[in-house]
């Protein structure tokens, strides 16, 4: 597409590239215009500051998802961001591309509809652990089984933040929340196990502290050509951390730094506190 437009302009060189219209053509169709773009072009600045609490990790994921898309040089018109309900569900609205903010848990179903409706589109789903693994668990099972091409970024803060701090499917056993005042009695859901139980799978675990790894995971996920699931370890300071005794967001970020280590070549499976990419 790009070269075609440029050659169309070439024979008309006495006209020059000085006119405004040609400038516009050049800007949009000359391949080099990518160098002028940055991730900032994918963000809706008129909606900033964002709705999230001070120090929330979702903003970091928003930035790195935009960066990943930008560095993959996917044109803005080919990107659709879909999200569900919850704190992370609000992230779709901050992307300066076509975005959908659907029902609680149904982001994957809607994203599959979008992808099947127009195969040209690159669909990125950004949603939370409660949305994707809790209420939307069934859709996760089946969308991953059907291997629909989409990149799912699951921001895992181990809590239902927007509703005030209730136990989520990924809350660690023994954690005190509003709905588990004696400590969560259940083991957290094993997202890695769910995704990798499919013969053809892409599962990545990253965190809001390990930013380069996060960006690389998202880029690999988007360019995989099938269903990819990226679990991003995040935190919730206002509705979970404070109850657990954390003073502020950096303390929670620091905990992620201390606990999680990147494993660049996991052997088939990631350990509990390992970050990495498991794929076939």
């Amino acid at each position, binding site marked *: 597409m790009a070269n075609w437009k440029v050659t169309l302009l070439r024979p008309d060189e006495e006209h020059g590239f000085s006119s405004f219209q040609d400038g516009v053509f050049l800007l949009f169709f000359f391949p080099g215009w990518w160098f002028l773009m940055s991730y900032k072009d994918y*963000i809706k*600045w*008129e*909606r*900033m*500051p*964002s709705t*999230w*609490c*001070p*120090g*929330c*990790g*979702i*903003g*970091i994921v*928003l*930035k790195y998802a935009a960066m990943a898309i930008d560095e993959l040089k996917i044109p803005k018109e080919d990107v659709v961001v879909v999200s569900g309900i919850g704190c992370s569900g609000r992230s779709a609205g901050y992307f300066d591309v076509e975005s959908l903010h659907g029902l609680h848990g149904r982001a994957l179903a809607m994203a599959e509809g979008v992808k099947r409706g127009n195969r040209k589109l690159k669909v990125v789903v950004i949603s939370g652990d409660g949305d994707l693994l809790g209420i939307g668990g069934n859709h996760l099972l089946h969308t991953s089984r059907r291997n629909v091409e989409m990149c799912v970024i699951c921001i895992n803060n181990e809590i239902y933040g927007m509703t005030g701090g209730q136990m989520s499917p990924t809350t660690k056993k023994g954690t005190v929340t509003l709905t588990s005042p004696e400590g969560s009695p259940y083991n957290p859901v094993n997202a890695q196990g769910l995704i990798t139980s499919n013969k053809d799978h892409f599962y990545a675990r990253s965190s809001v502290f390990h*930013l380069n790894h996060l960006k690389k995971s998202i880029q690999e996920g988007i360019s995989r050509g099938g269903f990819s699931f990226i679990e991003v370890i995040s935190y919730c300071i206002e509705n979970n951390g404070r109850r657990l005794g954390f003073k*502020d*967001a*950096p303390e929670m*970020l*620091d905990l992620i730094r201390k606990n999680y280590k990147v494993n660049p070549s996991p052997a088939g499976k990631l350990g509990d506190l390992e970050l990495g990419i498991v794929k076939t």
Partner: protein
Amino acid sequence: MEAEKKKIGGPLTWIKGYCKLCSICVYICPAKDLMIKGNEIVSLGKCTKCQLCEKFCPDFAIEVEK
């Protein structure tokens, strides 16, 4: 919305309209350059342009000149 920007010394620009004073930049800065003073982020002039604050800021509220 055009946010209010403020040069806070050296290569740093602080975007007051976006900042929620979460103090992640203060924590992450390896040179211990940034601090919160009242309701403002201030620089102590020790910036090494490592850009970690810009990378980690969840609210796009700090920029470092390259």
